[in-house]
């Protein structure tokens, strides 16, 4: 049973119910755990079973940021017990002050950046809608967030005069996708093979599945009909031209 209702729906139907999101029904990377090395088994299993508690953010901050994350990395199509923890992973990073090796000269330290952004989002919401971000409809939450994504905060707020909004947005997104796509349930969703030592792969070409992987079974997947985050941009907005990739691809 997928959870959450869509109070913002004005058109279209609800999300369809699937066994698990994605096109690889019945695929489970965790079922392959016995073929992984010991150290990897431990890291991935702990990720699933030991969710850290919130230690860095206050209760209020955690509530607001949790609501933000629920929209920038939505999981309404996942059941409650199969929801991938994101806020706890981010909270732990900030609690330990674990950095990614650099800070832009025009950005405050990561911890401060998040605190400033939480405050700004709440005050923007109060000004625009007269209530707290957490109490807004999903549609109004998306309006606020889309304005940050587009690099044109609506309404404007003093915090974004000193902290470049596109840099904060990139950090937020990267923290969210790091938590989500490092989780084995997300690997099941996208058909990623997961850890592969010592077994390895034998079918390298033509997108062929290993015997223990699943074939893709596509169907028409639709995001909630009027979500503002569902559109596929052709290319990033112009603000992103100064935003460079942070990953270590080559």
């Amino acid at each position, binding site marked *: 049973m997928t959870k959450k209702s869509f109070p913002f729906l004005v058109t279209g139907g609800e999300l369809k119910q699937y066994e698990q999101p994605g096109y690889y029904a019945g695929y489970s990377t965790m079922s392959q755990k016995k073929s992984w090395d010991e150290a*990897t088994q431990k890291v*991935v299993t702990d990720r699933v079973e030991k969710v850290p508690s919130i230690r860095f953010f206050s209760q209020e901050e955690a509530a607001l940021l949790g609501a933000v994350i629920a929209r920038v990395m939505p999981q309404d199509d996942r059941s409650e017990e199969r929801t991938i923890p994101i806020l706890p992973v981010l909270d732990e990073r900030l609690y330990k002050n674990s950095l*990614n090796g650099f*800070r*832009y000269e025009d950005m405050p330290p990561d911890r401060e950046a998040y605190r400033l952004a939480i405050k700004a989002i709440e005050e923007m919401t109060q000004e625009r809608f007269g209530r707290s971000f957490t109490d807004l409809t999903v549609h109004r939450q998306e309006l606020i967030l889309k304005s940050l994504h587009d690099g044109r905060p609506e309404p404007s707020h003093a915090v974004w005069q000193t902290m470049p909004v596109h840099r904060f947005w990139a950090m937020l997104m990267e923290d969210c996708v790091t938590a989500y796509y490092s989780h084995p349930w997300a690997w099941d969703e996208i058909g990623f093979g997961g*850890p592969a030592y010592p077994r*390895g792969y034998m079918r390298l070409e033509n*997108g062929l599945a290993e015997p223990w992987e699943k074939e893709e079974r596509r169907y028409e997947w639709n995001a909630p009909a009027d979500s503002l985050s569902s559109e596929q941009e052709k290319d990033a907005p112009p603000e992103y031209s100064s935003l460079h990739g942070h990953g270590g691809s080559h």
Partner: protein
Amino acid sequence: MAHHLGPMQTLPSPMRRFTENDPVDYCIVGVGSAGGVLTQRLARAGFRVVALEAGPFWDTEKDWVSDERGSHELYWNDLRITGGTHPLALGENNSGKGVGGGSVHWAAFTPRFHPSDFRIYTEDGVGTDWPISYGDLKPYYELLEREIPVAGPAWFPWGDPHGHPYGPHPLGGVGDVLVRGCTNLGIRSVAGGPVAILSASHGDRPHCIYRGFCLQGCKVGAKASTLITHVPDAISHGAEIRAHAMAFRVSVREDGRVDGVMYFDREGKEHFQRARAVIVSGYAIETPRLLFNSACPGHRHGLANSSGTLGKYLMAQAGNVVAGRFEELIRLYKAPPAHALSEEFYETDPRRGFARGFAIQTVGPLPVGFAKHMVAAMGAWGWGMRRVMMDYNHWATLGVLGEILPWEDNRIELAEEKDQYGLPVAKVTFNLHDNDKKLIEFGKNKVIEVMFAAGAKQVVQEPRFAHLVGAARMGSDPSTSVVDKFGRTHDIPNLFVCDGSILPTQGSANPGLTIQALAARTADYLIKQGNAIFYSNRRDMDEPGIRYDLSPPYTRFKGNPRIA
């Protein structure tokens, strides 16, 4: 329990320990691509060597995982400040910490530099010439290609055409896209290498299993890192690798020679390792940072900086990632990310309107890395992110690897902020110049064209940068460079720099092989000079002649094929 370096190899035990007050011959700072090779060579030649490494001494079975997020500790994660018009992403993008350094998480592409790379000022009036030629380095390229060893095509047609000692790897989905797209446009390509990954077992290192986690540290031991290729042999020959040792000052005596390195241990306690000569191999950020932090009377602006060029002429390569979505499945996580390339656009072509060129290479981001690309390339978020990631297996990714010229204003300085040891952190400034911008625009569009020619239905791209070199460049003129052609600082006769920071220019080739080749050459020079390094201020500029008897086991005389 044995300390594993790959599933079959273990760390030689016991490791020799030197006492701090007993001066060693060489103290090497940083055990990465260069430091690993240097330590091994100097130990084999009988010198007493201590190598300090800021990070841990990895046990590959215990410490490494087949997992992106679980590999965070492989990178230099300490604070650095990045700025300029095009600020560089650091951390996982380009810096390692721990024995093996960046060679632990490099993709292991090992193309050589082209002969033209050593004289771009003479040929094109840009950048600067090297104080050495391709011919000086060529025997070292061949030697290191055997020692690492490199797998690749028997015929590599660009630059100085050559073959590779180990056979090429089978083609994966992304490599197939590169070859198909290039072929449809009449562009030559090669596949299966050159890459420092074993296509067949080698000594006590197994062959590749194509699991795709090259950038997370190769647990298989198939991908070369100095941790498994040179460090074990160094220890067998009496070198000491001291891990968790963060160097903070190179100490200068009154007579102007250095006499050792001060460092913090894991607990933050200060130590002083005495040495008769010091080699700094900390890479393009930490090397200048250490030399700046070692400033003292007589060297007010940092050691080896009488020219004022220390920290300047920092380079990163254009590393735009072009992603294409295909109707058919690719499954880009299989096979090594580095396994096909084209250097057809490497050299200057006056018709293009800019100097120098670029390479086209496969890249293979795993899910977290790919999602980050989609943040920057598409502005993906929310349900849009979920949707694009559900198609992860339909995407292929190619990288531009473009030459950015050395500019004085691209530099490392000290920031006001301090790290956990109270040391000023590095501030990195990076600006693109006109030639760079034109080159990136052309290269990006060419790779987009290749992606469409391969049959992609949708193509997006993300600007980014790869690798870091320069900032302590070598040259013949002491007023415009930091070190001479052997890595000896112009200012201090027993202080050397040997790592990527000494590169005067960078070509469009991944720098790892060149850094290791330069390290082997510097080692030959030091060995030939013998004790003179430790007391004489005379600077012998004669080539040392290559030594073929210092290679690690199993690597001697395994020939580099020359088919044509």
